């Protein structure tokens, strides 16, 4: 169970102050597939970063399975990120200088999994996502759909409970986007909690529940 209570995030610069999240209260059940919708700059990505432990709250509380994430030390926060969370980004966030295989392998390296085991896991997920043939290709030389599959394979290979997707279909055409959503539904079937940020109504329709964010607040 994920719980945000009066969560606030303010970005402060020398001459400005921006309220990205404004007293957000949100509960996400375990194994739920949630879509977060909102216009650009509404605070969707900030919300996702907070949920993934990539950023910190300036106000309020963030609780994950009863653990107050906003009170964790940096080391424990990193542990939380390493073990519990997987990210899928709009621009795929693949490392151009690593092959598809190596990209998928990266979180497994972080988890300290042995080489043999890593190879099995990566190959299994590449197979599952239909990108086995791209093993030694570099991301810039494969299509957007294939890149996003690689990113999903990377997120799945990690075996995390919580998958955070930031506009996963944003850089894909309609057909690829739909294919991708099928994969998300498969992931959901694997008992994963998915939080997906999107501003596409149709894509959001794949989720069990849709939450709308306007000006840093949860509207509905």
């Amino acid at each position, binding site marked *: 169970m994920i719980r945000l209570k009066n969560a606030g995030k303010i970005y402060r610069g020398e001459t400005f102050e921006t309220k990205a999240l404004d007293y957000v209260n949100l509960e996400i059940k375990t194994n739920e597939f949630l879509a977060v919708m909102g216009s650009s700059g509404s605070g969707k990505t900030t919300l996702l970063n907070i949920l993934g432990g990539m*950023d910190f709250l300036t106000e309020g509380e963030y609780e994950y399975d009863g653990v107050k994430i906003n009170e964790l030390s*940096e*080391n424990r926060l*990193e542990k939380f990120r390493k073990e519990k969370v997987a990210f899928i980004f709009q621009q795929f966030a693949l490392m151009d200088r690593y092959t598809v295989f190596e990209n998928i392998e990266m979180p497994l390296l*972080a*988890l300290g999994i042995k080489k043999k085991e890593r190879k099995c896991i990566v190959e299994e997920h590449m197979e599952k996502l239909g990108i086995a043939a791209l093993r030694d290709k570099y991301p810039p030389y494969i299509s957007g759909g294939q890149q996003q599959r690689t990113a999903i394979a990377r997120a799945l290979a990690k075996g995390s409970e919580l998958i955070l997707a930031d506009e996963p279909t944003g850089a894909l055409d309609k057909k690829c986007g739909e294919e991708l959503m099928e994969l998300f539904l498969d992931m959901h079937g694997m008992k994963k909690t998915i939080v997906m940020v999107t501003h596409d109504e149709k894509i959001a329709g794949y989720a069990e529940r849709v939450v709308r964010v306007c000006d840093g607040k949860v509207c509905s």
Partner: protein
Amino acid sequence: MRLSGILRLAADRIYMNRKKFLQTVFMLFLSFFMLIGVLLGFYQYNYTLICANEVIQCDKNRLFKVEFKYFESMDESNASRFFQFMNALNQMAGIRAGKYEAAAMNYQLITTQAEEESIVSQLEYEQQAERGETTISMAEFYKNSNEADVLFLDDAFVDICGLSDTEKKRISLKEDKEYTDMAVGYERQKELPVGTGLYDMFTGRKYRVTQVLKKESAFLPGSLFSSREPKLSLDNSLVTLPNDRWMKDGYSSAYQVYQNNIYYIADEKEECKYLAEQVEKTAKDLGQWVEVKSFPGLVEEYRKIQQSEQVPMLVFGLVLLFLSVMNIFLSTLISLLSQKKELGIMLACGITKKEIYRILFVENLLRFLTAFCPAYALMCFYHSRGINNNMSVVIRILPLLAAILVILLLIAAILPVLFYRKKYPAAFR
């Protein structure tokens, strides 16, 4: 993350930024090379001062003992001047030239078969020389004889060769026998195989090679245990004028030869002052350049020469080192800034900041070692070819170098870490 993972990611980074890596390695290599050179120079300087304590034992009439580790590192011209000087001293002291020349070659390698015969012919020749009946020099005589290959040894060779106490114990000199047991360095075993007899024509002592020292002793400085080819000509051989019985009641003064100059270093004793005056006078008569100095005066002068040579090199080395470290620091920082996205992805993949810093540390460590090892090896090689080639010096400076290496590594690798310490992963994207 496992160590293998960290090593792999560090290796990946090096491979991906190989041009920059090689550039910084090259700069560091130059810096280390100079720094090691300077440190060796300073240590060498200490070593030379120790050598400067070598003494000539003398009385008012005769020069009777020279001990020098130093001499074996002389070049030919120095050696030649040394001999001329010695000869002049010798003449001054009233020792006949022929005798001195024989003294210069005072230990002769004689095969057991030809031993007695050779001694007789040698003594006969000396007597002829004394009567002025000889037509060829002693050197020529030796060269023409079967015993031309002369190795100069004396019963104090263990000191000359700078053996450690442990190694000294390995050499047992049993003087109650007709032949005294002696040991030779590993590299000399071909020239002096076990069983070879040696005869000291001054003391009349006979030696027999009974032992070959372990291989490591080849690295010790000194003639007998040197790993280098022996120099067998008269002009550049190791020479000692022994022996123990002449040492009684002797007066001492220090003698040093360096930088193509010859110094006779007088201490404060009246006898030495007298000898110094005589040396100056004789040298002047013979057209030799001799300068008499006090030992502290020589040390001071030597220190100044060393400093004037080494300080600019040290400054240049340190400047280059500073630039190299700055280069590494900035390149690490720039690579962190330019790979912000990549680092963000790594963090999103679960790699912690600490692990990223470890990767950077390993990368820098490899960079330093890749530069340091060849620089150290090259400087060792260079050092082994130079004068005062005491290889223990290069080992002695290792802890200091290691400390410098660690400090530089920390400066180069930790500053970027401090720079990024407080940033949250979201800031990397």
